[in-house]
């Protein structure tokens, strides 16, 4: 666990070997599977990096605080992910009850947008910049 290269280094090496040495030799369905494996590994590397600074979780919780107040965010759980889940359960009930019907693109929108952006920063950052759907796309 303290050994170097660490888990991110190893996965990074695996991804590079996959892209540079394995993928060029693959064709058809196997290449498609290879591309999907590369995409999955790249996502995991970004998640490992984000675990060290908690940035995506913090940003989402800040937007929740704007909507529900800092106290409610603090009391929603013991760690960031648990808080987001509990607050989202509350949020979906509020949406279904019509709490935001008068202003759907108002303050609630900022929170929803932040959640989409932070999830994409891990799974497909290109989508944020270029709005590019990930390839390969399932049939």
């Amino acid at each position, binding site marked *: 666990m303290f050994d170097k290269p660490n888990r991110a280094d190893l996965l990074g090496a695996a991804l590079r070997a996959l892209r540079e040495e394995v993928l060029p030799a693959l064709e058809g*369905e196997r290449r498609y*599977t290879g591309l*999907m*494996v590369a*995409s*999955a590994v790249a*996502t995991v590397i970004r998640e490992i990096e984000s675990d060290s600074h908690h940035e995506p979780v913090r940003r989402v919780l800040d937007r929740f605080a704007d909507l529900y107040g800092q106290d409610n965010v603090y009391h929603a759980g013991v760690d960031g992910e648990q808080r987001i*889940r509990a607050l*989202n*359960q509350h*949020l*979906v009930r509020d*949406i*279904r009850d*019509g709490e*935001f*019907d008068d202003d*759907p*693109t108002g303050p*609630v*929108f900022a*929170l*929803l*947008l932040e*959640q*989409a*952006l932070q*999830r*994409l920063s891990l*799974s*497909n950052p290109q*989508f*944020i910049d270029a*709005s*590019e*759907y*990930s*390839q*390969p*796309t*399932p*049939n």
Partner: protein
Amino acid sequence: MVETHRAALEAWLAERAGARTCTLTAIRKLPGGAIQENWLLEVDMRDGALPGPASLVLRTDSPSRVVQSLGREQEFALLEVAHGAGMTVPEPLFLDSEGIVIGKPFYVMRRAGGTANPRHLTRDPTLDPERAGLTERLGREIARLHVVEPPHADLEFLGSPPTNPAKRRAESFLEQLDGLPDPLPILEWGSRWLQRNAPERQHVALCHGDYRIGNIMIDGGRVTGILDWEFASWSDPMEDIGWLCARCWRFGVDDREAGGLGARQDLYRGYEAETGRMLDWSTVAYWEVMATVRWAIIAHYQGQRHVSGAEFSMELALTGRKAAEMELDVLTQIRTIEEGR
């Protein structure tokens, strides 16, 4: 698994076709199909309805099925109706609704030539001279299906037609969201918006439900078959148009707004040429939001199928994570509509 039933399949095909003999010269599983399995059958029959060599496709369930998809028997009936309406579909031939021959229900149809591969169809430059004609054709094809209206004696399994298809669809999203383990506020918000902004003017006809590149076989400049009928329903025809044109089904080729294949105007022109009248396309933007929410929910369910252990699939696992892309699109699309009011 279909190979292990070769003899039974040969006997069954011969009997159904009224042939003296049927020889299966090749059986091969076709790629793709997260929900259904398709097997290529090369057959050679003596006499009967299909004499000589022929390429057929056997379609059956994959190991786990998705919510709300129709069974093989119903899909077969839909193919027959679409075929009768003059739509280009693989000709439906024989149905085993009982699952006697290979252990699960299946049907056999003629094989449509060409490819349905989205990466090829949206990006291959050799197709460029054909794009306008192909896209217009897609408009004509779906317009033929939309001529079929309820009630229809062979389609009773589709249930009673909704008075407000958009509202019913948005309501079904809430049920589906309740069936997923995690709260999904963006899709909840999108569904709420769809419920509250349903178009006043809707029409009800037979809709394909999954009309997009990937389910349309194309050979050069020719449409050879509309596939995958398991999501057909009575709905507003604009739902099929919105599904085809939504950004999430353009396979990354955004400037070709008709499914990544061609121009939206060509699609509309073909549709209007087939129906012989001008149409109001103003609700398509709404139906594109509907399409994006729907695909996002399906993506979450597909990811869940993998996570639950029901089915191992790299593709299903990644599709679950792909939902965030559609969710950002839902936010952007609705904001654009709201700002344009």
